[in-house]
C-alpha cells in the first residue's frame, strides 16, 4: 500500500453521502482513499478510521443535534477535520473554524472544493471554499478579528466568482496574492477565539512561511483580548 495516499474517514448520518464522497475521492487525481464510513462518531476513533489523515464530518449528526462537541474533541486530539454539511448558515461556519475545523464545505459546493479541502487538511492546512469565504467576509460578530479591506475584498470576490483567477483579475492582483489575502484572513480567525491545536499549527505555519509577521498576529490577538473583557459569555 502506498504510504503517500491520503486517507479519510467519513462520518455522516445519510447513507448515500459517503457513497458519493467515495466516488469523488476515487476519481480525484491522485485518488484519496476512504478507509471507513459510519453514522456514528466512534468510527473516527476506532478501527481503520482511527488512523485516517482526515475526518470528514457531517455536522447534523445526531437527529438534529449539531456535532460541535465531537468536532472539539477531534481537534483536541490533533485530528484534521473537514466539516461537510447541509447547514449553510454563516454562524455555524464561523463556529466550526473557531472550534478548529480546517475547512467548512457546504454540500452544494461539490467535489471540486471537498477534494481540495481534504488534500489541504491532510497536510494540516486550511482550505477556504467560496461559501466559508463569504461567511468570513460578512461576519458581523462584534468580537470578529479586524480584517483589512483588501482581505475582505478578496474573500468577497472569491465567494461571488467561485474562480480564483476571475476574482484576482477583477481586483487587479495575481492569484497568489489573492490566495495570500484569503489565507491571512483565515489565520486571523485562527488566532482569535478558542485555542485549538490545529489553529495553533496554522498560525505557526503562516509565520514560518512569512505569510504573516508575529506582530500582525499579536496586534490582532491583543485587540481581541481587550474586546473579550466585555464579552464574558464567550469561553476563552
Amino acid at each position, binding site marked *: 500500500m502506498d504510504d503517500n495516499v491520503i486517507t479519510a474517514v467519513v462520518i455522516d448520518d445519510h447513507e448515500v453521502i459517503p457513497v458519493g464522497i467515495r466516488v469523488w475521492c476515487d476519481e480525484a487525481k491522485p485518488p484519496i482513499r476512504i478507509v471507513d464510513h459510519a453514522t456514528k462518531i466512534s468510527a473516527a476513533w476506532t478501527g481503520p478510521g482511527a488512523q485516517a489523515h482526515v475526518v470528514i464530518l457531517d455536522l447534523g449528526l445526531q437527529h438534529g443535534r449539531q456535532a460541535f462537541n465531537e468536532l472539539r474533541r477531534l481537534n483536541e486530539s490533533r485530528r484534521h477535520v473537514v466539516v461537510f454539511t447541509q447547514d*449553510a448558515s*454563516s454562524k455555524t461556519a464561523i463556529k466550526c473554524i473557531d472550534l478548529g475545523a480546517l475547512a467548512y464545505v457546504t454540500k*452544494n459546493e461539490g467535489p471540486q472544493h471537498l477534494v481540495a479541502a481534504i488534500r489541504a487538511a491532510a497536510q494540516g492546512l486550511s482550505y477556504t471554499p*467560496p*461559501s466559508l469565504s*463569504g*461567511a468570513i*467576509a*460578512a*461576519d*458581523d460578530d462584534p468580537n470578529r478579528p479586524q480584517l483589512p479591506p483588501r482581505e*475582505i475584498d478578496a474573500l*468577497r*470576490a472569491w*465567494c*461571488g*466568482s*467561485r*474562480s480564483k*483567477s*476571475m476574482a484576482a*483579475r*477583477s481586483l487587479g492582483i495575481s492569484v497568489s496574492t489573492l490566495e495570500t489575502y484569503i489565507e491571512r484572513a483565515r489565520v486571523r480567525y485562527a488566532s482569535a477565539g478558542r485555542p485549538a491545536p490545529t489553529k495553533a499549527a496554522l498560525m505557526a505555519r503562516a509565520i514560518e512561511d512569512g505569510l504573516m509577521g508575529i506582530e500582525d498576529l499579536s496586534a490582532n490577538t491583543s485587540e481581541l483580548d481587550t474586546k473579550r473583557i466585555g464579552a464574558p459569555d464567550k469561553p476563552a
Partner: protein
Amino acid sequence: MPKPSTSESLERTTRQLLGGLRLAVLAIAATVLLLPLSFIRHLHVYQPLWPQLLAYGTLLAVVAAESVLIVRHRAWPVIRWAALAAVFGAALLSRAFLPAGATVSAADWIFGALGWTAAILLLGRSLWYLVAFLAIHETCTVVKVLVTGPATSDVLLNLAAGSLGTIGYPLASGMAALALRRVAVAADRASQQAEQARTANAIEAEVHAHRQRRFADLYESAGPLLQALAERTIDLEATDAQHRCAVEAARMRRLFAETDTAADPLVHELTQSADVAGRKGVVVDLETRGIWPEMPVPIRRALTEPIVKAMSTAISEARITVVGTPGVVSVNVVADCAPVDTADGGSAVRVNSLSEDRFTWVEAQWTTTSSPP
C-alpha cells in the same frame, strides 16, 4: 369601553361635550347659593352665627374654585374628594346649629345648596357617586326631621317638595352628564374610525401611484414585445426573440415580487428570476451571506438588473451569491451565459463582468453611503 390608547382623545371629546353642562351647573349652584338670599334674611335666627358662616364660606369656596377651573379648562384634581368631605362636614355643622324645627324650613339654606355643590364636584365622575351622596344627604335630612323636628304634616310636605328641587334636579344634571359621556365615547370612536379611514385612503392612493409608475416602466419594454407577439411580426423561432421574451418574463416576475411584503425584497426578487431560469432547465443555486441595509428601489433594481440579464441567457447552471459586508452589498452570478454590458448599473452601482472558459461572472456592487463600522 374605550381602549387605553384612545383615552386621551376621549377625555378631550368628553371635556368638550360636558363643558356646557358644567357651566350650567355652576350657574345654578351660584344662583341657589347667592340669589334667594335666604341665608342673609335669616342671619338673626342663627345662634350662634359662626357655624353658618363657616359652612357658607366652604360652599362658596367650591363655587369659586369651579369658576377658576372652568376658565382654565381644567378638571378637578384629587382635592375633589377633600372638598366633598368639607361640604358634607359643612352641612352637618350647619344643621347641628340650626334652631329646633328649622330643618327643611326657609332657614335651612344648605338643604337646597348642598346638592348643587356636590353636583359641581361629582359631574366628571361616575353617576353613582352623585347618587350615593344625594342619598346620604336626603337620609340625613329625613332622620333629622324625624328625630329632632316636629314631624308635622306641614314639615313632611316641605321635606317632600324641597327634596324634589334639592335632590331631583342635581340628580337630573348628573344623568345628563352620563348621557353626554356616552355620546362622547361614541363620538370619539367615530372620529377615530374616520381618521383611520383617511389614513388607509392616503396609503392606498400612494401605493396605487407607485404601482402605476412601475408598470409605466414595464410598458416601455414589454409593451412593444407584446404588441409584436399579437401582430405576429416577431419570429418566435429566433433565439433573439426567445431571449427578449425570457427577459421580459423575468422582469414581470420581479415587478410582481416588488408588490408583496417579503422579508428581504432583494433576495425575493432574485428568487423570482431564479424561478424563471429554473423553468428553462437552468440549475440555479442561491446563497446569501451577511446582512445589508434597506435600499431604495432604483438601487435594488440596478443591483438585480444585470443578474436578471445574465440569468436569462444562462444555458445550464447559475450560482447567485449575495454578500453583505460593512459598507458594501455585492450581488453575483456565475453562469454559462453571455457577458453583460457593464455600463448598466448607473452611478451608484458598479457592474463588473468577467468571462473564463464557458462561465461568466457578473457582479453588481453597491457601496452604501454609511461608512463601515
